[in-house]
């Protein structure tokens, strides 16, 4: 009779210290993370390779519907616009569009993606500091909302609309002091200095510009809901003044995004989930401020939100495997994974939660998690307590849906597949992995460099 061998775990030893108690404990993981939406992590890696990104469609829809509920139960007119830069893989965008989101884009590249996804031009918000005259012309012809960032753009737009004799629907981006440091004053027109009001005057005096909205985006990963109360109040002040001075009703206030996800910021004292305000807290202050500002019922503006990170971060997972274990000169354990900062860009500012995808014992080790790049900056976690991981073991990195699939770099290694698990538990490839050809195809070789002798 063949006896089953015991599961092997790399031998490890840890000195026990007294007098250094941590009230939050040191263990980070208590159970393996073996399935995503009922689909086995091991099977996903067997099918799609390691590393690979996995998006949960169910989580996206649930998170989105919860955010919409938070605002719509408090305010009568609400519209979400999907922030393309957060994750512009077409399948991801279309989940948001199916849920009713417009598109919020910040470049002609993203604009074109939205159009190709089938978003009607008049449901695209065109933000960002770089809009060439040609870009503006496309947006104008499609009747999109153009959010003007600076006076140079405003003058371009005035010239263009006069040439074409076509009216553009415009809003201005307003930057302001909301009591949060650092103040984002590089985008848009400043409220306190009167610059925003000057821009409004210029727009109101222009024959072919229709002032339809006011926009702000006060920061990113905002942990203080009250900053949004200040922002909503200052935008409302402008809207009410526009009504008073020009008798023009502002159709919408766009409060932008910046709501945090449950990730833990590097250096934060508490884990993300214990720190961040809920979406309801943001909804409460924003809607209360607008509703109490004193708008006439018929002038109450549409409230637009462009939240990205808080909608998608939780839905993204990165699956990876252990390449090697080693010990550093100071005795610390180092574990090298097959994913690094090239595809997990957010490792630069988050302490990502990493969970083994197979059974482990209660023994843990403090370790550094490195990526596979031959670059010193490739550190995924500089200090984390995890069970002893064997070569080839799989891990799951949580909450990676925002920015990683747009800010990732083709650097040293190629980018992996992105997959999506639909609401029925079926998995789909939504972006193929790169091959050498993906990288070399756009390259050109001058004739004199085609050959060499070594």
């Amino acid at each position: 009779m063949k006896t089953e061998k015991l599961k092997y775990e790399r031998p490890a030893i840890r000195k026990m210290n007294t007098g250094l108690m941590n009230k939050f404990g040191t263990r980070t993981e208590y159970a393996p993370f073996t399935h995503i939406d009922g689909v086995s992590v091991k099977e996903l890696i067997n099918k799609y390779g390691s590393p690979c990104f996995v998006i949960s469609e169910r989580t996206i829809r649930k998170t989105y519907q919860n955010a919409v509920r938070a605002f719509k139960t408090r305010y009568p007119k609400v519209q979400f616009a999907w922030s393309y830069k957060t994750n512009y893989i077409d399948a991801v965008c279309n989940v948001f569009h199916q849920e009713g989101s417009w598109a919020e884009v910040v470049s002609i590249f993203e604009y074109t993606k939205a159009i190709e996804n089938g978003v009607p031009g008049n449901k695209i918000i065109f933000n960002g500091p770089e809009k060439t005259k040609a870009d503006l012309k496309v947006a104008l012809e499609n009747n999109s909302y153009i959010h003007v960032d600076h006076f140079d753009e405003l003058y371009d737009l005035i010239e263009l609309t006069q040439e074409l004799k076509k009216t553009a629907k415009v809003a201005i981006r307003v930057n302001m002091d909301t009591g949060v440091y650092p103040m984002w004053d590089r985008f848009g027109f400043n409220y306190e200095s009167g610059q925003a009001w000057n821009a409004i005057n210029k727009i109101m005096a222009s024959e072919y510009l229709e002032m339809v909205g006011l926009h702000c985006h006060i920061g990113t990963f905002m942990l203080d809901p009250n900053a949004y109360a200040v922002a909503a109040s200052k935008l409302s002040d402008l809207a009410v003044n526009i009504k008073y001075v020009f008798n023009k009703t502002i159709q919408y206030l766009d409060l932008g995004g910046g709501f945090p996800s449950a990730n833990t910021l590097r250096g934060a004292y508490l884990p993300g989930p214990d720190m961040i305000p809920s979406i309801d807290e943001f909804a409460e202050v924003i809607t209360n401020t607008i509703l109490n500002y004193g708008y006439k019922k018929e002038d109450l503006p549409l409230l637009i939100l462009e939240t990205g990170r808080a909608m998608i971060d939780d839905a993204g997972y990165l699956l990876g495997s252990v390449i090697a274990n080693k010990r550093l000169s100071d005795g610390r354990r180092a574990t090298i994974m097959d994913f690094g900062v090239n595809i997990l860009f957010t490792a630069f500012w988050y302490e990502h939660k990493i969970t083994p995808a197979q059974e482990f014992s209660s023994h843990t080790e403090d370790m550094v998690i490195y990526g596979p790049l031959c670059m010193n900056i490739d550190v995924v976690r500089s200090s984390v307590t995890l069970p002893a991981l064997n070569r080839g073991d799989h891990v799951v990195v949580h909450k990676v849906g925002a920015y990683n699939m747009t800010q990732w770099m083709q650097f040293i290694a190629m980018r992996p597949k992105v997959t999506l698990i639909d609401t029925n538990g079926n998995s789909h490839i939504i972006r193929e992995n790169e091959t050498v050809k993906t990288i070399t195809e756009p390259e050109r070789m001058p004739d004199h460099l085609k050959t060499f002798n070594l």
Partner: protein
Amino acid sequence: MKINSNLAVSDSGFIFNPSNGDSFSTNAVGADIIRLMKEGKKLTEIKKEMSAKYDVEPGAFEKDYEDFISQLQDHFLVSHV
């Protein structure tokens, strides 16, 4: 390489060094290795016993064993003989 003979090792992997009062915890594989070392077994015997008991290739075990010994050295739990 010889493990300090006066170390107290419990079945659950708790290790106490009476010569300086240090205590340690180790996992099941680590506890087994220390037990075999205390019995005076050499690497070849330890490797054979461990690969019979655990689901591990002898080559992979040897690499982890060397790393474990270096950890024991760092904690002054082994001595050269």
